[in-house]
């Protein structure tokens, strides 16, 4: 069952960049893309660098997949699936995210 939690306002997000939110004790990296107004929420933890830094990575697309690039050792993670492009055996948690009026909501319970 979906449990949406209010995280912050849309105005708190950084356009075409990321922020980190604390949701139920989990560190969640949230990215906000304009002009499409698309949001992505993934774990903030980089399993290669062993540090909570992914919200501070650059975002872009590689062959049409939206990705974040870890600032530590430059691994790419697919923002929709959490799969690492350099090593597809590594998959980081991805969370459902939605915009509700001016608010941003994340569901960390439903992480696959």
């Amino acid at each position: 069952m979906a449990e949406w939690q209010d995280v912050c306002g849309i105005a708190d997000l950084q356009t075409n960049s990321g922020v980190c939110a604390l949701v139920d004790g989990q560190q969640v990296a949230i990215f906000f893309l304009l002009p499409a107004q698309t949001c992505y929420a993934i774990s903030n933890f980089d399993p290669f660098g062993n540090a909570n830094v992914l919200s501070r990575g650059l975002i872009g697309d590689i062959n049409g997949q939206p990705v974040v690039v870890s600032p530590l050792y430059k691994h790419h993670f697919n923002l929709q699936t959490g799969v690492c492009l350099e090593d597809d055996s590594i998959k980081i948690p991805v969370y459902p995210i939605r915009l509700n009026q001016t608010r941003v909501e994340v569901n960390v319970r439903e992480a696959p």
Partner: protein
Amino acid sequence: MTTKKTLLVIGNGMVGQHFLTSLVASSIKDDYEIVTFCEEPRAAYDRVHLSEFFSGKSAEELSLVEPGFFEQHGIVIHLGDKAETIDRQAKTVVSAKGVTIHYDKLVLATGSYPFVPPVPGHERPGCLVYRTIEDLEAMAAAAKTGKIGTVVGGGLLGLEAAKALVDLGLKTHVVEFAPRLMAVQLDEAGGAMLRQKIEELGLIVHTGKNTSLITDGEQCVNKMCFADGEELETDIVLFSAGIRPRDELARNCGLEVGQRGGIVIDNQCRTSDQSIYAIGECALWNGMIYGLVAPGYSMARTVVADLAGDLASFTGADMSTKLKLMGVDVASIGDAHAKTQGAKVYSYQNGDNQIYKRLVVSQDKKQLLGAVLVGDASGYSTLLQYCLNGIELPENPDALILPHRSDESVGLGVDALPASAQICSCYAVTKGAVCSAIEAGFTSLGALKAETKAATGCGGCSALLKSVMDCELAKQGFEVNTHLCEHFAYTRQDLYNLIMVDQIRTFAELLEKYGKGNGCEICKPTVGNILASYWNDYILEQPHLGLQDTNDTFLANMQKDGTYSVVPRIPGGEISPDMLIAIGQVGKKYKLYTKITGGQRVDLFGARVDQLPPIWKELIDAGFESGHAYGKSLRTVKSCVGSSWCRYGVDDSVGLAIELENRYKGLRSPHKIKFAVSGCTRECAEAQSKDVGIIATENGWNLYVCGNGGMKPRHADLFATGLDKETLIRYIDRFLTFYVRTADRLQRTSVWMENMEGGLDYLKSVVIEDKLGLCNQLEQQMLQVIDTYQCEWKTTIEDESKLKRFRHFINSDQTDDKVIFVEERGQLRPADDDERKHFKLVEVA
């Protein structure tokens, strides 16, 4: 256990050293204990470029020996010790210092000595020769008290020596016995053109002069008296009238020598004793002494091959030469004097531009036999290829030397060259070798040079090498893809120009006009960087925010645990006690790990993202500015203490370093840029390992460019000498802007320059001679950057809205629980995995 045989090399000049480097690169390097005698106090150096000693190159820079070469390869070198006798029966060599070495194989690379004609008075004070660094030092000493210098000998070496006298500030004469200059290489018209050009440079040339006596002068130390009754007053008489082989060792042990000297060798460079080889200028092959370095190198390689049991022969060498004598291009190929039976001659003379060209072709006009070029040697490579490879000439051979005023190219297509064609004669690299390297994946000019060594000697073949590369890549069906990434089908340089021409101010605008998709971690920082160097906007402005890597977006350097390090600018490394205390107080308050950097400043580690603004507030209040350690931009200008304190200091290196650092701080560039300024040639600031290095001399500042440390260290190249401060700064402005405009992303100045067609000379022509007519623009652009400088941290802490990002969580004041420190040597560092489990954790403020 096997006992190694001993290989002894007598002489560590250019050829002796080339033999050693070829040997240690060969399959037989482990078969021998290698021992070498070097009579001079220093190991091999570049005698070809000896005159550069006076235009600022040091003895170290002229060295041909990589640091640690002898140690690394286990070669025993007896420096400053001369081999005196060879006992061929016992196979031993005894040196002047009494060292006795038993050899299994012996290589004589004893070189030559300058011929001094037995003119009465030739041993008077001020009578010198030009061969070793010690000779140069004697010249420099004599030049201190003298005003006039005279070179005896108007050949290739003589004119080199004349340049050295000019560089020493002497009024210079050249006295030649033959009726023209460079009589061996040039015909009469070529020699006359060269004379005219050289005399315009202020030298006085006397041809057809036979010196009969040197005696006391009236105004000068010496007076030269000529057979025709004329006289010339001069302080220095510099003999450069040819060389003689040093064959006395061979002569004394009974090896066969030529009638006029020289150790007789066969096609394998063996002497009359099968255990002894001779190479270089001491060797006589087929009645010829080769006074050039390339044939000596070729002999050295022949001996290595022979020792390895490979079939190899030295069968003579091409004596073609191309050189720049005091800025005048001179080249001579093959049979320049048309001595071949039936040879036909074409010549072209342009009295206005002072260009002379002559072609010597075979009777049937199909083969090129020789050529002379004075004033413009640009056709040298093509002509040499025709000559060496016997390529059939076009129907009208004179087209090869006539100026072509249309776009029609008359050059030889590189595709026509056979695989055996020699591209680089310094390192004997054939077109075949270049092609194999290209096939093996070395597909940039820089990589190709590093792999094949082609174009790394005199550099004369670099344009040819580039043509071969382009042609081969096209042939192999490589589409040379220089696209920045999948979002932009352009190079960085293209994008720079597009941004400049269309006056584009944001990434979104550029992407819409010239790109596709959303961008990536390659194009975003690249474009962010170009926009920053061109417009110099505040990089955290909304449209630029998502472009920069995390270091730039948080204006600090991310460390392994996600915390940051902070580096305030300390221009020139000069810091007052109060400022130092201020840094210390910040470090103490925030419990930061503190370390001195290699760039003479202080790095503070372990700051959480939320601590960055308060830390910077305190630093700025204390008078600091951002150090841009996080950006692709100017890092530091390192300096030694200079003339204000040092008893050797020649100029104020700290003062200049501070001025330069303040001038260029904040400049965004393709990669980081480092400077250093040394106050004298002792070079304590290590300026020659920097992108821009400056060294004070008594004649002004010497400017070095394109050096770097790091994984592949590179010594900087001497760019200009004796500059006043204004000229120095003008050159640096132009150099840096040109780099910012034209380099690839993440390309340091060294690689940028190495990949540039024409290399250092081209760079000089753009920056110093303004070949592209760009200098004014380049300076203006730099001034705009300097005028719009802002301390990014000052702007950031003054803008409340920018500070919102400097917290770990957008919705909580908690900090990252993964950041854990432990104590080591009285300071903090990130805990490793084990410590996270087992050790008591230190609480952080």
